[in-house]
Structure formats: structure tokens, C-alpha cells
């Protein structure tokens, strides 16, 4: 308490960089629960859109990317390994509580999607918290989710259709999770709500 520390994510000590403050932990889980609430509406929206995809069901993957945006948002805010996975697990556990249609197996989806986003940031050694790893994470989450759902729900689809599904999920993940998540965090930073985080210090200083 007696020393003054210059704040900057690049000069903080490695030990501190990995340690989870309470505010990091609580923010990640609260953001996850908030998205769980949002998913009620998004799930209803995707159900309404299902008739559009009746002719070719794997195309429905184009709207599912939004379901792993909490992983991207949590990772970009907390900037720590494991944030994406934790957030996605919590968000996925809220869904069945609020009447999600796949019940407890949503948790498995949460693991796949969370791991995919984690991998996106891990590939850059958790040093870059920018649009690129967000988009890569969004794509990888889609690619991991496809075989999970293929084996669990859509067992009779041929490999070709499962591949198409993986592509739509990956595209959707890149846009609706990666790009959208990154844009959300940038907008949140501008409001000042991210003051305790490095992500919130990218805005211009107030006097």
C-alpha cells in the first residue's frame, strides 16, 4: 500500500497478470448470467426463424453464433485464461433454468463453445486481446460445437451436411460472437463501465 504502481497491463508483473481479482471473477460470472437472460430472447428469435431453414436445416447455424458471445466478451474484459470457458459454462447453465430447449445437454455445448473461444486466445499465448483472437475463437467454437451437436442431436445427418453445419456455425461464430463481442466491449469501454479493467483504459482520458 505504500508504493505507487504505474498502472498498465503491459508492465504488470506476471504473477499479477494471472491472478484473478474478485472483480474479475464476479464480472465474468455476472456478464455470463446477463447473457443467459438475453439468450431467452435470442432463442425465441431463432425459433421463429426456423421455418426459413426448413429446406436446409444446417443453415440454421448462421444464427447460432450469438450463443458464444459471452465467452468472447468475458475474455476481452477480464483478459485472463479461463474467462471464456467459465463465462460460457455459466451462461449455458442459465439456459435450461429459463426453459432452454436442449436441457442439461446445453452444458456440454457450453464446454465446447467455451473451449473453442479459449483456444482462439490461447493460440496467441493470451497476449493479444483484440479483434483477431476474438474472431478466431468464434470460428473455433463453431468448429468444436458442430461435431458435438452432430453426435448428440443430429445423428442421422450425413457427413456432408454436418460439414455444412460446421461451416455455418464457424461463420456465425466469427460474426455474431467474434465481431459483435469485440464491438460490444469497445462500446462498454466508452461508457466508463470497464474502469477496473485494462480494456476500459483504451478510451481517451477525462480531465
Amino acid at each position: 500500500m505504500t508504493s505507487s504502481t504505474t498502472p498498465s497491463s503491459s508492465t504488470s508483473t506476471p504473477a499479477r497478470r494471472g491472478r484473478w481479482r474478485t472483480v474479475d471473477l464476479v464480472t465474468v460470472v455476472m456478464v455470463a448470467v446477463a447473457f443467459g437472460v438475453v439468450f431467452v430472447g435470442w432463442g425465441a428469435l431463432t425459433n421463429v426463424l426456423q421455418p426459413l431453414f426448413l429446406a436446409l436445416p444446417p443453415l440454421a447455424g448462421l444464427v447460432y453464433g450469438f450463443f458464444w458471445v459471452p465467452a468472447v466478451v468475458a475474455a476481452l474484459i477480464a483478459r485472463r485464461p479461463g474467462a471464456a470457458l467459465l463465462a460460457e459454462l455459466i451462461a449455458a447453465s442459465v439456459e435450461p433454468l429459463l426453459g432452454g430447449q436442449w436441457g442439461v445437454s446445453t452444458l456440454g455445448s457450453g464446454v465446447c463453445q467455451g473451449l473453442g473461444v479459449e483456444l482462439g486466445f490461447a493460440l496467441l499465448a493470451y497476449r493479444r486481446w483484440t479483434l483477431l483472437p476474438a474472431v478466431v475463437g468464434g470460428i473455433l467454437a463453431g468448429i468444436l460445437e458442430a461435431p458435438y451437436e452432430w453426435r448428440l442431436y443430429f445423428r442421422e445427418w450425413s457427413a456432408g451436411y454436418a460439414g455444412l453445419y460446421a461451416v455455418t456455425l464457424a461463420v456465425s461464430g466469427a460474426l455474431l460472437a467474434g465481431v459483435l463481442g469485440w464491438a460490444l466491449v469497445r462500446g462498454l469501454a466508452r461508457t466508463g463501465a470497464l474502469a477496473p479493467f485494462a480494456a476500459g483504459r483504451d478510451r481517451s482520458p477525462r480531465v
Partner: protein
Amino acid sequence: MTGPGVAEGLRVSGLTWRPAGRSAPTLDGLDLTFAPGDRVLLAGASGSGKSTLLRALAGLLDDTVGDLDGTVSLHGREPQERPGAVGLLLQDPRDGVVAEHVGRDVAFGPENRALPRGEVRARAAAALDAVAFPYGADRATAALSGGEGARLALAGALALAPQVLLLDEPTAMLDPAAADQVRDAVRDAADTTGLTLVVAEHQLGPWLDVCTRLVVLHQGRVLADGLLTDVLREQAEALLAAGVWVPGAPDPTPLPVPSADPGGRPTSPGLRWSGLEVSAPDGRPLAGGLDGRLGAGDGLAVVGPSGAGKSTLLRVLAGLARSTSGQVELGTADGWRLMADVARTSSSLARHLGWASQHSEESFTARDVLAEVRATGEVLHARDADALATSRARAELLIEALGLGHLRAEDPYALSGGEQRRVVLAAALAHDPDVLLLDEPTVGQDRQTWAAVAGVLDAARRGGAAVVATTHDVRLAERLGDRLALAAPPVPDLRPDHRIRPVLEPGLPPAGRCNPLALLAAAVLAGIGSFWVDSARVGMLTLLPTLALSPLAVRRVRPVLVRLVPVAFAALSVGWSTLLLNAAGPFAPGSTTVAAREVTRILCLVVPGALVVGLLRPSTLGDALGQRLHLPARPVVAATAALLRLDDLLGSWQTMSEIRRVRGLAPGRSPAARVRHALSLTFALLVGTLRSAQQMALSMDARGFAAVRRRTHALASPLTWRDAVCLTMGLVLVAIPLLLRT
């Protein structure tokens, strides 16, 4: 005031704090000493550093987000060396709630110190006794009113035997009766334990008989420090200039604000209601037989303790909620119309009503204050250039009158609480509505801004608007004239049991008493069993036991059916895509059999889990995950606390949609507009969530959460014969398809 020893008491020396991104420090070279047993009132203008100083005293300033110089020491040591030695109570007690039931919430601090279970329970019960908490330890935290929540927070701090208690504007949001109770509880705690008390407040008067010393902060420095009465006398001028509510000073006179041209709009007859009944969200009737009438320029103050239904009444008057009986009518150019009819379209509602919600951040839709204040006018007068110009001029006038001129380009979220409330008020008035419905418009305002708010409301009434405001501000109620008092809910029994015990919800189905891990395991086993369903017949046979046992897991049929409808859709969609995409080709012969099998398989996979999920509770699940699976303590506890916010978040989404409707900002019909609207709501929900999270983290750290390596639990997570039965059921659901396989 200084003690004899060098290291006694709470000392601040040369304390300077500059948050990252700011050029001026919030605290600038502070030197203060608080002797044990001191009772200090901390006053100063908004932004003078009071909250920051309290966080520094608790040792909770995060030096990764700012520059910290100087020292804070408690008896010569860091304040956080013994977590809980310095208790911190925040302005909104709901931010600090971490458990479902009162007893567990109070036990949070002792659990974090890894005290033995018996001692955790004893301390929790003693703390609840010390604050004379009116309910038992099994009371749901979600059901507490503002004052009860504040006392719960106080009990939570007392459970750790603090030497110092810091309170950050503890009564700002409370009605006078609840505020008295909280003050009494604080004074009793200080009398009994001799702890040091530091209270940051705007309204000094009520604390005169609790505190003996006054410290005044100004721009991060100590302006005055001495005996309460002396400082009040000597520094009265400076305090009044800083906006502090100095006791004994005359009430501020409302600012003279020019009112809108009275001839510019035909005066509306106002608002009338008859036979209204107001009920609590859970259906309890709160008030009935309400009749009233407001003409143009009239004012009405709705007063009463929190939980009495003031906000609900306001929503009913606005046509946002249905009253169980009675009706509300609005006077318009076409005569009296039912408010329910007016409320059918967002724009007609906005034309007549101005609405200011208590939670200002839930109202914001724009990126800067000017756009926010103009928002409703822009929508209503999109096609009428003259009316639009008038509306913009009004917005400008209001911004200046409410002291927001220098903030017009700022993001509304970045403003202080008091500034945000004024923005919401300006936005409610800018389009010159006939009726103003305001929820606590003067909370958090200092003397100057109170005068501005009162002046603006007077001007609105002179211009012909009728004003209804829920408030616990006596001065505002006097200015408004008429008063509608809603009664307090009945007081509960006098000797509640404060001991922590496992809570049995009334009406919980038998399966609800199983350990949550057993329930989840059974659901997972059932899911595994679904893999061996190889025909529709086997699927149906596997579903039968699930459905036969479902009365054990559900009491009422309707909620379960509601939950199963999306499951049925999911199963049917899988069946459809199987018909279409199976390896033999679309609609090939034999594909219907396969599709039917897939439908039943999905049902076997999902239905057991859907039945079980309704029985899970965050608290028992957290206990099970922590004690049975030995998952790391901090994430589990944090996740449990966050899951408790679920209902609040759902309510918040609902409120935000309503506010947009009242302001004329409901989305259009097109899908693009709806998606934009949903994204805007998502963004607003996230901002609110981030704020709550930061407050919750602060409160948890004040109770020792940051230093947790191992924690104990006040309640065990037992495994009983019920869980063996539950697991057997799961195994049966695996065995049936295995055995019936052809």
C-alpha cells in the same frame, strides 16, 4: 482526538489516489486519524472523494487501476490483514447480497475466514440478533425491503467483529422510518462494541445524535476536521456552498425557471383514477379502493415505506401494468380516455406522459446527454418541423436549468448518480407532456441541484402539466401539495429464529429434497441411456418411467408443460431434419421410422433434465459443488451469487423495455428494428451488470473474499437415501434401452 500510542486507531498519512486516465487526483495528500470509538461524519460535495476515502480506509483501493501514494494503517497494520476488521456498507444493500437466505448471507464473512461450522452459525445468529432483524434466518433475501436489506448488510459486517465500520450514504435510498431503524441499529452496534464509525452522508441532520466529529472533504483535501457542532458553525458557509444539507439551514428555494408558453398547448384536464387496487409481484394485495383526480398544474406525492407499492402504483397510472380492478383515465383533447387504450401504442403514450424511473441507467438509449434529452421529441415530431424546433428549444432550456450544460456531449453512463437522475428528468419533460410520473426524483441531489429540480417541476406545473411523484423527501412532498400515503406491510412476529438451518421450501416436490448432484447425475444418466434407443417403441418405453415419476419432481402441471413445449419443438425439428437429410435421401422409404426414433430419442435425452432443472437452487447447488466435488471455492461462490441475480436481470430487461415504450422509443415492426432494439437493450443490460458486479466485488472483498484459499460452509450437503433412490432411477433409465435393444 489523537490517541496516545503511535500506532493506535485508523490512520491515514499523505494519502493520494489518482485513478488511471485522470489528470487530477481524487484524494490529495490526506492526513487523518480516527481514534478507537470515534464517530465521524464525512461530508463534502459530490465528487469530493468521500466514497474513495472510504474504500481507501477499508484497504480496498485497487492499485492496478490507479496511482496510490501514502499509507493507511489500522493499529499499525494494513487494514486488510485481518479481513473484516474494517466493515464497509454500500449505498445499495442489494449489491452485497450473496446468498438466497438471510442466515447464509450473514454467514458469508465467517465462512470466508474458514471458521468452524458451529462458530459460523453462532456468529451469524448473534449478528442478526444484534441488528434486531425482523425475520428468521430462512427469509429469502430477494423478499427484503430496502431498510431490511441495509440491516442485513450491517449484520453481515458485524459477523466479522469489525473494529471500524464505514458506511457510504447508507440511508440515501430509504424512507424515513427505515432510515431511522438503520441509524438505530448502527448506533447500537457502536455502543455495544465500541467500534469506530465513519459515515459519509449528504443529509447531515439525522446523524447529529450519532456522530460527534465532522470531517469535510473538498476536492480530495480535508477542508475541516473537528467537533461536529463546531465545524457546522464555523464552516456553514463553505458547506452550504458545497451543497451539503446543513441541519438548521433554511430549505433551498426552487430555482426560477421560465415555463413553456401556456398558450402553446391546450390545457389537459389531467388524470383520474377510481377503484384502483395495487398488488405486490407475488399477488399479495397492497392497497385497494384508491380514487383520485389530478387537474392541470396539480401535484401529488405518493409516500410510504418501500414495499408498500409506490412504484407499482406509478406503473399502473402509466398504463404499464394492469390493476386488478378499477381504471385510470387520461384527459386528452378528445375527452377522457382509458389509460389502457392510450398505452396501446408507444407514441400515443409518450405524447401524453413523461416518465422518470428510479434506476436512471435503465432509461438511457443515446450516446450523449443532448441526444438523450431530445430522444422522445425527435420521435414524436419527426414530421413536424415547428414542433421539433420547439421541443429542441425546451430540451436546451431544461439542460441549462438542471445544470447539465457542461455535460451535454458526455455519455450518460459516465455521469454521477445525481447527474444521471437529472438527465432522466430532463428527458421526461422535454416533449412537454400532460402528465409527469416520477419515481424518486430528488434522491442524491445536493442543495443546489435540489433547487434546480424543484424549480423545473414548478415550471412544468405552471405550464399545465400534472405531476405525480413517489418520494420520501419531505420537502418535495410539501411542494407538491397533495399526498397519497400507502401503508406499510404488516410487521412480522417478534421473536424470529435467527439460527441457520436447511431451508425447506413449502410446496417443494419430494424430489426437491435430493442432493442437486444426485438430480444432475440422474439426468445425465438418462441422457446416456438415450444413446441406445434404437426404435420409436423403445424410446416410448424409456420415456414411460420418466413420465410416471414426474409427479415426484413437479407439483403443478402448467409450468412443466410450458417448459416442455420448446423441448417438443426441438424433438420435432430433429425429426424433420432427419427426414430431409438422412443418408438414404430425402423422404426415402424407411426414413419415417428413423425420424420417429430420433424424435423419441431426443425426448429421452432432454425430458428428464427438463424436469429436474426446476428443482435446482443456486445455494444448495453451490454447496454441493464446493463440498462434494471440491470445486474451487471462489468461482463457485461467485457463480452462486451471480445466479441469484437472475430474477433481477429479467426484471431489469422488462423495465427497460417498458421505459422505452413510455418514451415513445419502442421498436417498429421490421425485423431489423427489432434486432437493433434487442441489441440496444442487451448493451444497457450489460452496463448495469458491470456496475452491479463492481459493487458486489467490493462488498465481497470487504467481507474477506479476496483472501480466500479455503472456506467452510454453514450448511453441509448431505447425501441421503433419497439420493440413492434418485441415482437408481437414473440407472434404470440407462438399463431399459440397453436391455430392450434388438
